[in-house]
């Protein structure tokens, strides 16, 4: 853990509470997911669910930043999902976040990434302002990675994707490393900003017992579409430009020549012949 928090904060960092937000999504715990063949949306009932594993890195980074700022920060967790997603919010609180909100309303069901991002941006407007918003790289169910950049765009703040390190923060600005093809890009941005963090950024902690107790005792208010003053035409299926029209299981087969290798020499000779036929050697 040595040096994991970076250099001690300089004077400018302290003195003002920084307001941080973390976006977390609850996802199915297993790969076995049921999909509604009619709407193409996920059936969430009777399924074990967990906080999106990649969101733990976002939570951890927010908590580390708070520690780096000698506690001069407040962390708000925001999640959108069914009632049971309150558990994901509590998990984040048990890791060190201060409070959490669940955005839950039947009218939000079936939201694609744009409708999800719109609802989250409305919640952020309502609960904010925030100096810095953390999101995961992507989820393990929808797996698009589109929500973070879309939320930032709807809030009209800069988005920094693939963030693998916070180099500096203070004075209304942040310097980060972005893990991109071929290396790391160092980028500076003014605050407020939204960061989508990658796995490389840290090693998420396990919740402590006192963290768990705090999470159990913390009340997580549930917000409806009305609470966030959402435009009804922008949420749920109605507000989603994309439609899942078909779900199927990957089936890729080739009718190849499969031979037994009881006679290894003969098998390799036949393989060489095959590679010659195909013009590979």
């Amino acid at each position, binding site marked *: 853990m040595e040096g994991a928090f970076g250099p001690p904060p300089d004077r400018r960092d302290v003195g003002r509470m920084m307001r941080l937000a973390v976006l977390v999504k609850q996802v199915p715990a297993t790969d076995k997911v049921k999909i509604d063949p009619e709407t193409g949306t996920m059936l969430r009932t009777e399924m074990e669910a967990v906080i999106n594993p990649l969101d733990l890195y976002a939570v951890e980074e927010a908590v580390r930043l708070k520690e780096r700022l000698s506690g001069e920060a407040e962390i708000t967790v925001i999640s959108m999902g069914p009632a049971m997603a309150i558990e994901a919010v509590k998990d984040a609180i048990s890791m060190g976040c201060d409070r959490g909100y669940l955005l839950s309303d039947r009218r939000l069901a079936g939201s694609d990434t744009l409708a999800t991002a719109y609802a989250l941006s409305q919640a952020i407007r309502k609960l904010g302002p925030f100096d810095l918003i953390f999101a995961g790289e992507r989820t393990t169910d929808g797996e698009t990675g589109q929500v973070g950049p879309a939320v930032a765009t*709807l809030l009209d703040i800069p988005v920094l994707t693939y963030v693998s390190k916070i180099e500096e923060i203070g004075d209304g600005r942040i310097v980060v490393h972005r893990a991109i*093809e071929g290396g790391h890009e160092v980028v500076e941005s003014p605050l407020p900003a939204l960061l989508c963090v990658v796995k490389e950024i840290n090693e998420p902690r396990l919740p402590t017992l006192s963290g768990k107790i705090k999470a159990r005792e913390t009340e997580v208010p549930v917000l409806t579409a009305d609470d966030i003053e959402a435009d009804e035409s922008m949420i749920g299926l109605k507000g989603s430009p994309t439609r899942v029209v078909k*779900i199927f299981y990957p089936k890729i087969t080739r009718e190849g020549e499969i031979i037994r290798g009881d006679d290894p020499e003969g098998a390799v000779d036949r393989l060489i012949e095959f590679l010659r036929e*195909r013009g590979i050697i």
Partner: protein
Amino acid sequence: MKLEEYRGVWTLGEQRDGRIHTVSYELLAWGRSLADKLGVELATVILGHNLADQVQELIYRGADKVYVVDHPALAHFSVDPYARVLTALVREYRPEIFIASATTTGRTIMPVLAAKLRTGLTADCTGLDVDVESRQLLQTRPAIGGNVMATIITPNHRPAMATVRPKSRRPLPRDASRKGEIIFKRFDEKMFESRTRRLGFIRDETAESPVQDADVVVAGGKGLKDGRNFDMLFELAELLGGAVGASRMAVDMGWIPYSHQIGLSGKTVTPRLYLAIGISGAVQHLAGMSSSEVIVAINKDPDANIFKVSDFGIIGDLFEIVPLLIKRLREIKGKEGEGK
């Protein structure tokens, strides 16, 4: 929104350090089939600096039109100016389809652009087709850990936008006789302003592995039993003029770096030959290699899933087969050497 006001297929060209990147040509291969099916033009838009002498190549690779925006502020990807310029271009020319590669750049700019244009975006597609009658773009992508494939449409918004997995399709052969139009677009300086600033770049040689550009990929899995046995695969890859890939199991065991991982959470490859050795063929692995031209598998389990996707397979012990194969290839090379 009047859908019929939107016509044509667009791809987002990509450049890195001032050189057009091959993902741009892969996208043109996808775009060409869509545009031909719809009977419309295929255009590429590319943003960068000092690109003028390279953009003709995009025509040779399938574009009918190339929109070039050349400005120092576009030399490296930057969200603000890219988003402003692309939004303006889409509003002016109204393509019905706009696709980009699912690189870190494509995955960043496309959701920003889609949110600005309030249209749909499908992530990381491995298949794209159009329904000619309805003119809908059929976007197919793996989701939920590769366990399902979903086909997604954007029924009432345009452009229909998608990112496409790099290497999910080979570029079209270069055709220097192709003709097309190159249009340099100019914008007000204000369009190029950015809230963020690039301070530097730390190159990491290990972050790139040659596996994505190789014509032959020799991949090893858990069946190799030990990291040292990968030496065999490197030798085989060298004899075949290729690179070494691996399953996630092999990477998780620490036998080979992550940059070699093939599959859903690793690289996608489409080599001429994919040789899977001691790999069972889990769906997540197949997601990264099933479009290879020729697939050969060596596995001791006759029921291994990998055989279902193979053009040629040997049911046997890799520790017997691979050394023999290396020996035979060496002999062949030796003979070729003598013949010269």
